[in-house]
């Protein structure tokens, strides 16, 4: 069963960037790519990095912490053996971005501020 919710407007997410929205307490990253809008869980399966702050090209986002690359259509991690990232169907209707958040309402909302991993990263692919 789907549950479409309106999360933001098309202009809220600049071209080829991501922004975070919060749905039922869960962090979701919304991306504006040349192939359309995509939404995935905003917690990197590696160590919890915020994917919405990642780097985008085509339908890929690269995590800002240690550069794990996630295919936005499937949620698959392309450069590591990690579990896939949850993806959400998205549609754009008259300038509004909607996503099917059914999966996020089947479980209780997480407590605030507990979604990011505590461990320290150890790779430096993206270092300043």
């Amino acid at each position, binding site marked *: 069963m789907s549950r479409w919710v309106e*999360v*933001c407007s098309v202009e809220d997410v*600049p071209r*080829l*960037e991501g922004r*975070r929205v*919060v749905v039922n307490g869960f962090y979701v990253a919304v991306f504006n790519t040349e192939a359309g809008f995509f939404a995935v869980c905003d917690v990197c399966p590696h160590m919890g990095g915020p994917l919405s702050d990642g*780097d985008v090209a085509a339908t890929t986002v690269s995590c800002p912490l240690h550069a794990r690359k996630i295919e936005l259509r499937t949620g698959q991690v392309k450069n590591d*053996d990690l579990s896939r990232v949850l993806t959400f169907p998205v549609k754009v209707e008259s300038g509004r971005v909607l996503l099917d958040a059914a999966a996020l309402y089947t479980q209780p909302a997480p407590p605030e501020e507990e979604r990011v991993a505590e461990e320290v990263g150890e790779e430096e692919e993206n270092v*300043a």
Partner: protein
Amino acid sequence: MAEKLKIVVVGNGNAGAALVDSLLAKDSGRVEITLYGDEEVGTYDRLRLSEFMAGTVDLAQLGMRSDDWYEERNVRFRRGVRVEELDTKAQKVRGTDGEWVPYDRLVFATGSSSSVPPIEGRDKKGVFVFRTVRDVEEMLEAAPERAVVIGGGLLGLEAAYGLTTHGSEVTVLHRSPHLMNQQLDPAAGRMLGREIEKIGIRFKVGANTEEIMGKGRVQGVKLKSGEYLPADMVVICTGIRPNKGLAGRAGVRANSGILVNEHMETNVKNVYAVGECTEYNGQLIGLVAPALEQVRVVVDTILGERKLVYKGSGASTTLKVAGVDLVSAGDAYGREEDCEAIVSSNPLEGVYRKAVVKNGKVVGTILLGDISAGPQMTEAVKRRMPAEEVAGLVIGSVDAASAPLELPDEAQVCDCNGVSKGRIVATIQDLKLKKVSEVIQETKAGNSCGSCKPLVAQILEQAADEVEEDKNYVCKCMELMADDVKEIVRSRGLKSVSEVGEACGAGKVCPDCKPALTYIVASTNSNRHKEERHARTINDRVHANIQNDGTFSIVPRTYGGVTSPDQLRKVADVAEKYNARMVKITGSQRLDILGVKKEDLPKAWADLGMPSGFAYGKAFRQVKTCVGTDFCRFGVGDSTNLGIDLEKAFEFLYTPAKVKMGCSGCPRNCAEASVKDIGAIAIEGGWQIYVGGAAGMEVRKGDVLATVETKEEAYDVMMAFMQYYRENGQPKERTYDFVPRVGLEEIKKNVLDEESGEPERLRERLRKAKEATSDPWLERTNNVTKNQFAREVGRV
């Protein structure tokens, strides 16, 4: 649907993991696999444990597989569960989780444990073995000042090396008269000893340990000779002992190891064994190659035609200690009768090459110091090639590079991953591969211990129509070098990364190269480019450094490291107001407010009222200075003010990789200027300018670019060099690589010859680029993208 064949694998080491892979590859639809592994961390490549210890790879790179990986492939992985009981009649096993699991086939892959000889005091705190991730983690945590490693074999030396890289003082004690006596003859062993000493590891041969001393905790080691070595850690690396206890209790026959036949069958029906827990024909194994051969055999026995047989395998070894090149294979001593040796030895250069020959055939080899002939020699041993074919290589009259190997297709090239030459050739031809890196990626040959990489390169050379070097592309997807992109940008007058993408595809497929493209577009246009924020990393989108928990750090600019009570007060207030996780004085003489939320950055910057210190970008960072002539009784040059002037000249400029500077007021060099990218040191009557220094991942003393008389000249030379590097450095290339690559003479020609006018033109271009920059922290009121600093853009 037919019942699936239930296979239980006990042990999740290299052999167990490879077994699961091969079973899945052979017929994943027909089998149901349960895998037990009693190590909490899961699956990893034990061979690379020494690299893990030295810190060159992390746990993820060690080959850890997530539980999901197994789940996706329908393997029931019981991580952290030890099998305790086996009922071979009822065909079921019970692990520490209490559950009985039935099997149709059971394979022991329990490996071995470190064997600890009965040395007095071996149970004291601070005594370790070197076998598992856990062992390594515990050793590193103990961070010993002085360690003694008992055992000077392969493992002992790798342990010693690992500890040395963490700053411990290590002594290796070895009972035999020379190191690695299993693999090396006395001459090579002695030479190895010298090489080992060069990297800072001490050793004693003929050393018998009598007792490990200390009250509860290790304090030292006493030798039979009476000698006493103080130490706060002892690592015992004296050998291994197959894990056969469980098998023995269940009535599976074992001697030193679990006894297997050539099909890897034990004496009990439907029970098999592979890897270091086995004993075949009186032989134990201690390396991964034979273990993997056994895995191939057992898969054929269980799922295939029971045609493959294991015949025992000759050992070849490479030492994975940085700076020491060593290969040993087969009978390196020539112990058997009628063995002769071809030897070439040059102790002055630490080079030793030997082929052991029996009845005209090569049966063993040692290469030390020069392992270029490694692939040819190990192959010669494996195939017992006629000695004439390799004699030239050993003596040194034939160059290894010009003596390609003629291998049969079935010859195994990568022992770690079991890849044959035939498969490599077929893959190269099918996929039209041109580069070594592609071959490694596609075939996995060379992916583990790496010792066969030279051979892979040779095979590529022979099999491919065209070979390409692995190039340092700026855009890997489009195979473009930085110079190619620069040329495209310049010749077509491109102004943005998107235009570059339209022109040549770079940055369209994956985001990796976009920051470098941004640098090229910006610098080629003297910063009059069209800024696109999607082509910068998060750090440069919000002008702060992202941290492990997704918050950011703020390093305001304090020119030359000079601050004031007013600034300090503001920093303190900001840290408090925005709940910073920490305020720290950085390694570069600056103040760092760490752990600020993205949405608070603009407010914090406004409160501070200081410009950005650019601590987050591939950009000019800061000038570290000392108090110089204004205060110091030794100061001969005004280093503080030179530093402040330079910082003002360079602030807000992006560079190919970060640029750090230092100015010291006298040769005491308190600002460490000689290990900065650009540095100035005042001397009596002038200044010395250093370039290409580093004290990070690399430590390199800078080269003296020039000695000049005045502060103004110093400033000018540094300006010219900075722009020369900005124009000619490759993306991500620090000056410690740039200066040696281009050559000091070439650099001098371009930045010092004032007559030619070129240095002034460089400075002019730098000033022009600088004019088009501004403090990015002003974006606090002038957002460049929508919701630039927003925490979230919607909430439902």
